[in-house]
């Protein structure tokens, strides 16, 4: 009996220690600002709001850089510092309708990895066709009903964000058509084949495979979250990014590091991915 009791106490103590040492605890990054939109501008167009949140990621250690370089040489491709599986990210949002009428809102999720940023307005796949559907965002754009004076909350889940990050990499590094990337489920993909650049101005142009396939261990993760808020009445959107830092690369000070220890943050300068328009 004494042994059983002792085992229970020791087991409990170990369980408590294990819980306290858990490195999988989420971190919360508040949005830089409240996004307010839905009013009409001087031309009568509905005003949209855009916001970006750069994840505060620590500078890469020398050993990480060496491992990454070695892997890149082995695979013959660029291996990013922040890869799929390093961070599990979720975006939680709250919409508040400030109007006395019920309305609808859409939230479009975009973003950037360390190599490229994705903005669907910079990708024009059919420049000569005015009726062509606009290039889709990475996720969202689903109408959400918001009652007058009411509040609605929701989220882009970790699965949504993982899918969005892989789609982003497929479109930007792999030149995969954005419609194809968004309409196929790639969150469990093991690789993708990069293609030649799309040429929407060239009639009957066919993209062809280019270079080696990119394996999952080299998929780039999102390092920046971009949201576009499109309500049809006066509303505000607040959001917050929840990160599970599985690799331990987020800065301890989180967003406060931007002002307090900027030198300890990895600077990322992703290139804007464009098709059919001049880069900004």
């Amino acid at each position, binding site marked *: 009996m004494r042994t059983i009791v002792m085992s229970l106490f020791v087991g*409990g103590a170990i369980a408590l220690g294990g819980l306290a040492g858990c490195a999988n*605890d989420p971190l919360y990054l508040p949005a830089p600002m409240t996004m307010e939109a839905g009013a009409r501008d001087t031309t009568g167009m509905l005003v949209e709001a855009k916001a970006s949140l750069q994840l505060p990621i620590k500078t890469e250690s020398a050993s990480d850089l060496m491992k990454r370089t070695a892997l890149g040489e082995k695979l013959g491709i660029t291996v990013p510092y922040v890869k799929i599986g390093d961070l599990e990210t979720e975006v939680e949002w709250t919409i508040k309708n400030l109007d006395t009428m019920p309305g609808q809102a859409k939230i479009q999720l975009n973003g950037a990895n360390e190599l490229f940023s994705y903005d669907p307005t910079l990708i024009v796949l059919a420049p000569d066709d005015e009726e062509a559907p606009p290039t889709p965002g990475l996720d969202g754009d689903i109408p959400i009903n918001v009652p007058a004076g009411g509040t609605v909350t929701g989220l882009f889940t970790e699965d949504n964000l993982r899918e969005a990050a892989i789609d982003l990499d497929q479109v930007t590094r792999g030149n995969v058509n954005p419609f194809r990337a968004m309409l196929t489920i790639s969150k469990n993909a093991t690789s993708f084949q990069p293609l030649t650049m799309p040429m929407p101005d060239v009639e009957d142009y066919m993209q062809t495979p280019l270079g080696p396939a990119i394996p999952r261990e080299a998929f780039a993760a999102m390092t920046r979250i971009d949201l576009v808020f499109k309500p049809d009445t006066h509303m505000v959107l607040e959001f917050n990014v929840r990160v599970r830092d599985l690799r331990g690369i987020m800065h301890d000070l989180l967003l406060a590091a931007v002002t307090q220890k900027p030198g300890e943050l990895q600077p990322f300068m992703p290139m804007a991915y464009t098709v059919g328009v001049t880069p900004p």
Partner: protein
Amino acid sequence: MRRSALVVIALVVVVVVAPGATASARPAASGWFAEGGLGAVAFLPKASRDADIGPALDIRIGRDLFSWLGVGISLAASSHEATVPPPPEGEWFQLYRGSGDARIGGRLDRFAGFVEGGAGIAMISSNVLGKVMITDPGERFSIAFHAGAGIEYQLENRHYAVGLAADGFLLPQFAAIRAIDSRLFLRYTY
């Protein structure tokens, strides 16, 4: 509520100061002991607005130095829903506490009472309360002070007792939040 609190305090005081009561007490082992408890942690205002009451697990190991004085170390964990203004919504955090403490008590037949107090360290699992300024950026640890009281019922077996205890604790680095940790426990004395 206030009346029941007074009754508990009075019982503890009577047990603690009862002179010569030990002689007629039910046999109870003394020395090294271990305690395991289950209960709940409830935050006091203002933190109660931002963190809900949550289940708690406590473990304590110590030694009775005298019949009226014991020392020990304790580990505790509790889990709470953050009720900060959304977003986020429906998120939980855990609070871990480890401390050293002293316990003064006495026995009246099969009942015993004690008062205890100590200090240690607390760790919070996430920065979800940063939104309401309870934690600062990068802050995960705080000093912890606690004090409380409890009563025990000695079972027929001299090694075992069950009890009920409540401790208030203060975490100065986490915006001086205060909470009550109440628990039912089983004590085993070697």
